[in-house]
């Protein structure tokens, strides 16, 4: 059905001679395929029209992706999934434009600023150590399930005042939500149920805290009940939308990056040794991971007015897709763009997006990745991918992430 609709929508449309493709980016692929695809697309043309769903533009190179991010008045965040111009969810502040966007962000920024992360570091390190200590004696684990999603979930919950013991149910919701994010109809029911579950959890948490005279220390839900927007309290819907997107944006993404980082370390013993000998390089290794192994295949925006952009005529209401994964390896933007340079100094990557919507949780994500490398290498300095394991990654409909990462190591004694 979508095919017929998309052909009807694009029939007679002047595409300015740009190449047309018909591609669903959602299906899982062998690990690393999405970056290969992004490279092929980038080298083939700066812009494509994809007739999948209602049809949307793909911009493949660094310069155009940056311009999309930096002109939010033209490229609205009302929808960020180009195959779903009118999604069933509304993330706040992710899908809010100026002038309201920054007002929501200012409520949340201090919770995820570097100082808040510094204050939480010891607690996060303890959580990380406990998880490493749990898996270490077995000599093997599925890194993605046993560590990659658990650590960011527990760390995030501890940052916002929810007991880490609640991690299990959040892990399940996150898995179900992203199973349907790429537009797969079978996943849609589970996605909707997960959204309902998360919202019900927060609705109850807000109810329990409502009416208290003072905000609870270190408790984000309680803090939102006392926060103001243009001098009025936040509405119940706003609070639910904000808390829900934090769960969805904060857990799955870091799991994705951790998986690729640890696959890299499993395959590159010289990099493991380097980071053990020179731990001051861990932050640059993390930044390079965010550039080279960008989990955001592309980022969508909705066009607010007719304009010409990089040689094609965009119309109001069109969806565009900035291929961030291609842009971050664009040789016009980076020296040695196609290599993982562990001590890369100038690394102005867009792994956390660009412009006003840059990732709220970036400081938390970086710190989690740094802690994971420090604590894992301290206990398990040598490890490998289990022989025969076939690694696959979830499709670029959501953020890419390894579906499994079986690791093995020698256990002393």
């Amino acid at each position, binding site marked *: 059905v979508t095919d017929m609709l998309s052909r009807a929508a694009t029939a007679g449309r002047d595409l300015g001679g740009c190449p047309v493709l018909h591609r669903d980016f959602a299906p899982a692929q062998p690990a690393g395929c999405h970056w290969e695809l992004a490279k092929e697309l980038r080298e083939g043309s700066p812009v494509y029209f994809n007739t999948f769903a209602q049809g949307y533009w793909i911009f493949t190179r660094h310069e155009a992706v940056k311009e999309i991010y930096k002109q939010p008045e033209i490229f609205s965040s009302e929808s960020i999934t180009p195959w779903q111009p009118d999604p069933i969810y509304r993330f706040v502040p992710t899908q809010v434009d100026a002038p309201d966007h920054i007002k929501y962000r200012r409520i949340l*920024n*201090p919770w995820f*600023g*570097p*100082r808040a992360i510094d204050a939480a570091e010891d607690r996060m390190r303890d959580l990380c150590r406990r998880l490493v200590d749990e898996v270490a004696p077995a000599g093997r684990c599925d890194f993605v399930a046993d560590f990659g999603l658990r650590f960011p979930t527990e760390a995030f919950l501890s940052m916002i005042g929810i007991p880490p013991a609640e991690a299990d149910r959040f892990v399940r919701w996150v898995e179900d939500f992203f199973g349907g994010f790429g537009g797969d109809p079978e996943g849609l029911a589970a996605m909707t149920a997960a959204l309902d579950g998360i919202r019900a959890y927060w609705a109850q948490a807000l109810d329990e805290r409502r009416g208290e005279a003072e905000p609870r220390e270190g408790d984000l839900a309680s803090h939102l009940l006392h926060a103001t927007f243009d001098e009025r309290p936040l509405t119940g819907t706003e609070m639910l939308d904000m808390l829900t997107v934090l769960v969805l944006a904060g857990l799955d993404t870091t799991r994705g990056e951790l998986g690729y980082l640890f696959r890299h370390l499993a395959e590159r013993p010289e990099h493991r040794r380097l980071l053990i000998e020179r731990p001051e390089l861990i932050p640059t290794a993390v930044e390079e991971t965010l550039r080279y192994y960008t989990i955001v295949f592309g980022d969508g925006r909705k066009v607010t007015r007719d304009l010409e952009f990089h040689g094609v005529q965009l119309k109001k209401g069109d969806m565009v897709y900035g291929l961030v994964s291609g842009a971050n390896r664009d040789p016009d933007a980076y020296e040695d763009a196609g290599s993982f340079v562990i001590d890369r100094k100038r690394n102005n990557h867009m792994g956390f997006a*660009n412009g006003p919507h840059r990732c709220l949780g970036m400081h938390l994500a970086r710190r989690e990745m740094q802690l994971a490398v420090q604590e894992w290498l301290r206990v398990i300095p040598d490890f490998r991918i289990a022989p025969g394991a076939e690694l696959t990654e979830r499709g670029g409909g959501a953020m890419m992430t390894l579906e499994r990462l079986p690791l093995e190591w020698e256990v002393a004694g």
Partner: protein
Amino acid sequence: MRLVVDGAVCMGHGRCYALVPELIECDDEGYPTLRDVPIDVPGDLVDFAEEAAGTCPEAAIRLIAD
């Protein structure tokens, strides 16, 4: 050399103050405290200042030669 952070362009990625904490401090929201105010860069920090400018994802850092 002087360094200035363009307050309208800066989005608080935090790469600059991670690289040169001697020059740039952050506020509670993660933005540099000194925005649109040129800071003198001591000779021994020039390399770091140049690195910070090249690393800023928003290209919000400008270096002004003496």
